[in-house]
């Protein structure tokens, strides 16, 4: 069968052709193609890796941010608390001071009132004494206008003394 016996010429040319094509393609096709493919794959892998890294960094930053925020929130709470305490303290202090001042004022006012009252009482006493004397003088003058009245009076007084 001629179909099953390899022809020498075709065998020879195929061998030459394969070797030549192999060398040509190795140098001019496979090298740049495979190099580019590797480069591209490396590029993609690097991009994915860097994206992953950025993601991780972002996550870390976010957690850091959250920590900062929490800290800030805590600080704010602390500040608010302190401010509230300060306010309460100030109010309490002001109240105490005001109370003390008021008491003082009241005391002073009472003292002043007392003094004035005493002065008024003394004045009234003086006035009453004067009035009593005047009234007694007027009564006495009217009572002791006659001689007999004077003598009777004296006599009465003498009687009283006589017993002593």
């Amino acid at each position, binding site marked *: 069968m001629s179909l099953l016996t390899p022809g020498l010429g*075709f*065998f020879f040319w195929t061998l030459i052709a394969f070797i030549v*094509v192999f060398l*040509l393609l190795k140098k001019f096709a496979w090298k740049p*193609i495979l190099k580019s493919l590797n480069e591209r794959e490396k590029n993609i892998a690097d991009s994915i890796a860097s994206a992953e890294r950025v993601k991780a960094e972002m996550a870390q930053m976010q957690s850091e941010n959250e920590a900062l925020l929490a800290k800030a929130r805590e600080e704010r709470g602390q500040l608010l608390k302190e401010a509230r305490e300060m306010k309460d303290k100030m109010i309490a202090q002001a109240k105490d001071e005001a109370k003390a001042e008021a008491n003082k004022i009241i005391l002073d006012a009472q003292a002043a009132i007392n003094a004035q009252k005493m002065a008024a009482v003394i004045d009234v006493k003086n006035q009453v004494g004067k009035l009593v004397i005047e009234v007694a003088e007027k009564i006495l003058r009217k009572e002791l206008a006659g001689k007999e009245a004077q003598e009777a009076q004296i006599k009465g007084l003498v009687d009283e003394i006589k017993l002593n």
Partner: protein
Amino acid sequence: MRLGRLKCLPVLAFGLLSLFFSSTLFAQHGEGHEPAPGGHDVKEEAKFNPGKEMLDHVADAHEFHFFTLKGENGHDTHVTLPLPVILYSPERGLDVFMSSNFQHGHESYKGYKLVDHHIIPVKEGTMEIDENVKVYDFSLTKNVVQMFLALIVLVLILTSAAKKYIAGQGRTSAPKGMQNAVESVVMFVRDDIAKPNLSHKYKKYLPYLLTLFFFILINNIFGLLPGSANVTGNIAFTAVLGIISLIAILLSTNKHFWGHVFWFPGVPVPVKLMMLPVELLGVFSKPFALIVRLFANMTAGHIIILSFVSLIFIFTEMTKVAGIAFTPVSVAFAVFIYVIEILVAFIQAFIFTNLTAVFIGQAIGDHHYEEANH
């Protein structure tokens, strides 16, 4: 399910037909050789001989034969593209001339004549065979010429793709057009053939495997063009590739591999002795199977298509009506097989390359492979 059964019908019909046909084909071929080269029987010549026609189509030739115009009183006009003939004979030296000088086998030239696509030395000026002269035929036959054309196209496609990569396209951006087609095949060979079989050593063998794959693929595809030669279905072509595979396998063997061949581990001594010839034969039978597989697949595909086309002529010889009636059926089957052949062109390129990679992987004796086998 019903559709599936319907699909089986043409396959069954085709199988039966080809079975029937192949036996008659070889029978007729055997008879075809019987008449002596000199004794031309006009009656035999006129009758359509499908076996001879088909083998003529799948065989190599010294010219591209397109068609023959039947002339009066046996003078046919052959429309061909003659190809250069290169002969070397230790006795006569080198001879280079065009195959048209043979007048399609009717005349001798420079002491050679053409019989059934074979160049035979004759005594000068006569048609008598000269037994004393040995000749080596290095002619650029239609297989050689078509292979060269295919390879030029292949190199142009691949280098133009490579140029695009060098220019930057495909490195940082997406590949385009033909470059994309090349890339997907290259990636396939790398990721599905080289890497699984050769693991970390794949880089060393990748240029060879890629060249092998594209070499077979482009020649398979060119062989499918109407009127083209059956390059990959030629045993010389596949023999070259098989021998190169064998060399590649043998070059990558190591102590471990030969230890396995000559002294099979883990079995008693008598079995070791029995395994020795089997394993040794296995080393050579593997590439031999590659050679025969590619050759048989491609030739079979061509013969089946030719068979369906020949059926038209066979039926026409019976009656014209039968021929005309059978034409659509025949063409439909031929187209069906043709489409399968396109698939086979890729599959055979893949199988040859993949099995070569598998055999190289076995020869390397990668530890992963060894562990998987024990």
